């Protein structure tokens, strides 16, 4: 069915290719686990290395590195509330609570399983659906991205645990932060207060470290006893059979895995959105579909499985528009695009037919790398986890502090970012005590540019029409997403009404509506 597929298969299992996969996976995981060093930056550093390799080896190395970097970002997200890459934002929501409860090993095993499943789904999507559905990507114009961003904002409803109003207030704080710097459409300079360096705006990872990691660190300082108890529990109660039990548990919930993987593959395909959006959407959908949404945010395993399945599926999904249309689906894909170009390989549908063996070797190597995530991840991830668990708080906190500084500096090699991170961290700590949820702020920072560019570009692109804004409702996909937005907005109200009704019926018959622990299977 695929010309050159058999050759590719033979090549992939050669010792040299396997070695490249292992090297790529280990390097990628180390870079991914370091906040501030994104997959993109790591790949750019690898770029000159690939000059000395033949095209196939270069691509295999980069593919393995990329997949592992995205996965590695989950370690620090779980252990110290510091997402290593923006693709692991939602992993902190339940991952860090699990650590606080002394269940970090379970979390690490769960995300490893999820990452392998997600990564393989993305690769399968790339292999079989790639050329077929690439054209769907092109139907997504500015208007569609605008609505996609608005749809993303409706997630605030589920991220804001207590007050919907405060949730939206937090979201708008995030949107405001995202407007700092040069405007994506029009080039105006905004809210820099004369500081030249602010023209670059606030990088997402700096906001993440500030809003997530710094408050977590302050909590450790103000309440060291809480951690000691949890750590003590994890150290002393080594549960036998935790590994197979956790893997079985994750795999026994195919709906969550499947849904998240499909979300990741699809969002990855869209050039205007990447892992940072996919992991949040997957988390939100997992929570919405769950029978026990109230357990999300408090250490629910499904809550770490969903984002990590999705962000690893983004890797394969993002390569679909790259290899078939020559359009990078995510920032990291731009670097891989550079490698292809430097070796004289112009992406496009003919790449599959003309360079069959090379492309299939690349895709298959990606699958091998994803499988390698399991052993390497379990060893490195649990090694890191045990180290963190065993480190006493008075040493861990300075270590995290150092990590936040290195991480925020590394994003753009800019000392201003360290200042910004500290400022946002203190602000985030304060805002949390006012009841403004940090995840909703970060959501605003992620989605602001997508919404703003979509709106501006959409209005300009339709400027020939009598009413340019009409294009936001008349384009078919736009109209569909707009309706989905309406439904999503109505959902919390609907859910509350149902809950209310169930509660009143429950009291009437004298039965409790509380679900039994562990019985939170999806419908």
């Amino acid at each position, binding site marked *: 069915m695929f010309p050159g597929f058999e050759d590719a298969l033979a090549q992939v299992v050669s010792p040299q290719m396997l070695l490249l996969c292992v090297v790529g996976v280990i390097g990628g995981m*180390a870079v991914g686990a370091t906040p501030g060093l994104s997959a993109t930056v790591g790949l750019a550093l690898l770029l000159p290395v690939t000059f000395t390799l033949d095209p196939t080896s270069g691509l295999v190395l980069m593919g393995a590195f990329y997949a592992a970097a995205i996965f590695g970002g989950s370690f620090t997200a779980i252990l110290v509330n510091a997402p290593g890459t923006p693709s692991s934002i939602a992993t902190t929501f339940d991952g860090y609570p699990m650590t606080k409860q002394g269940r970090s090993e379970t979390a690490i095993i769960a995300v490893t399983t999820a990452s392998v499943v997600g990564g393989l789904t993305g690769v399968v999507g790339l292999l079989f659906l790639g050329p077929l559905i690439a054209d769907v990507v092109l139907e997504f114009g500015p208007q569609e991205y605008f609505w996609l961003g608005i749809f993303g904002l409706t997630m605030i409803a589920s991220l804001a645990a207590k007050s919907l109003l405060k949730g939206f207030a937090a979201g708008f704080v995030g949107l405001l932060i995202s407007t700092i710097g040069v405007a*994506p459409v029009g080039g105006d300079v905004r809210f820099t207060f004369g500081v*030249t360096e602010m023209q670059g705006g606030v990088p997402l990872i700096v906001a993440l470290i500030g809003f997530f990691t710094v408050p977590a660190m302050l909590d450790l300082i103000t309440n060291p006893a809480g951690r000691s108890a949890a750590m003590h529990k994890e150290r002393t109660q080594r549960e036998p059979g935790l590994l197979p039990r956790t893997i079985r548990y994750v795999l026994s919930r195919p709906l969550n895995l499947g849904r998240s993987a499909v979300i990741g593959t699809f969002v990855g395909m869209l050039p205007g959105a990447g892992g940072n959006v996919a992991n949040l959407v997957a988390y939100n959908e997992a929570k919405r579909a769950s029978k026990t949404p109230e357990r999300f945010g408090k250490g629910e395993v499904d809550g770490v499985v969903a984002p990590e399945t999705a962000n690893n599926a983004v890797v394969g999904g993002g390569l679909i528009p790259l290899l078939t249309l020559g*359009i990078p689906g995510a920032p990291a894909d731009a670097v891989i695009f550079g490698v292809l170009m*430097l070796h004289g390989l112009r992406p496009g549908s003919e790449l599959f037919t003309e360079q069959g063996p090379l492309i299939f070797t690349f895709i298959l190597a990606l699958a091998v790398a994803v499988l390698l995530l399991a052993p390497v991840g379990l060893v490195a991830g649990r090694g890191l986890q045990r180290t963190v668990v065993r480190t006493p708080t008075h040493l861990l906190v300075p270590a995290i502090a150092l990590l936040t500084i290195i991480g925020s500096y590394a994003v753009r090699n800019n000392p201003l970012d360290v200042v910004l991170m500290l400022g946002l961290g203190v602000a985030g700590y304060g805002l949390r005590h006012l009841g403004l949820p940090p995840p909703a702020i970060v959501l605003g920072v992620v989605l602001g540019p997508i919404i703003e560019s979509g709106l*501006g570009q959409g209005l300009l692109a339709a400027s020939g029409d009598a009413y340019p804004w009409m294009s936001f409702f008349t384009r078919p996909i736009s109209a569909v997403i707009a309706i989905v937005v309406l439904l999503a907005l109505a959902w919390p109200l609907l859910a509350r009404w149902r809950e209310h009704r169930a509660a009143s019926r429950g009291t009437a018959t004298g039965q409790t509506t509380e679900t039994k622990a562990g019985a939170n299977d999806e419908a």
Partner: protein
Amino acid sequence: MRTSRRAFLTTCGAAALSLTGCATRAVPGGSQGTDYPAHSVQYILPFDPGGESDTTARMQQKPLEDALGTSVVISNRPGGGGAVGWSELANQVRPDGYTIMGANIPHVVLQPLARGEAGYETEDIKWAYIFQSTPNALVVSADGGHETLEDFLEAAQSQELTLGGSGSFTANHTGTLTLAREADAQLTYVPFSGTAAASPALLGGQVDALMTYNTEALNLQDKGMRVLAVASEERLAEFPDVPTLVESGFDTVEGAWRGVAVPPDTPKAVIDTLADAFAQVNKDPEIIERSEELGYHLEDMGPAESADFIERRKEADQKLLEQFDMLSG
């Protein structure tokens, strides 16, 4: 086991430190740059990794190291479309030639003009060499009904046409403005966040045309798009049948030029050494071959030539922005 894990962490930390380039601040290198370069040179790109400027620099790294006889460390300092890096170059970097920075035209001309406070002035950017250019190209969909440039511009007389391009106040932007002015056409420019981000809008039919670079035009041509015109002085080797805008009667030569710049007070000897090194890089057979494949046009403008060139560009751009009322302040 405990030590090995700690060793793992230490290695991660050390790797992170070395990756982020903690060796940036080097000791000052001798007097007046006669012994330049005495140690490694830091080559900074004010853009994100993966773009054309970044790829070019990483391509140059090896031959540049050979030419300078020292190691070259490449890092990125993105922000504000390059403005963050350039303002640092103009105001903070030590003028000893050990920190050099990629710089782009028209960015360094348009940002100070349009933003007012870009953090640097065009004159603050001291050019050592301009080594590459990518001219603008006008691309339409093959089934969009515009066979030639004349067809397209005629259609733009009676109705408003939209042109996508890379960002605001870029070569694509001014190229669209100039064409609209010269041809008296109704062209609306739609800025996207980068060259690659604009292409789906043409492929998906959300804009009528793209004002992009010749490099991306090559990719688009492979996907069945039609290149109507290029904005270079002469016809381009990769598009022998595509007319230039100049030969169609429009006075517009526009595109992006890339070079390398140093802080304002850098000694002349250092600048000359750098210029010689980059001239040598441009003669590297591998650079020539790769550039040709990618559509990068090699340019060889030394410090004086570069300064002249930029002065001319600034005059023209100032006039253009004035006409469209886009000057700051």
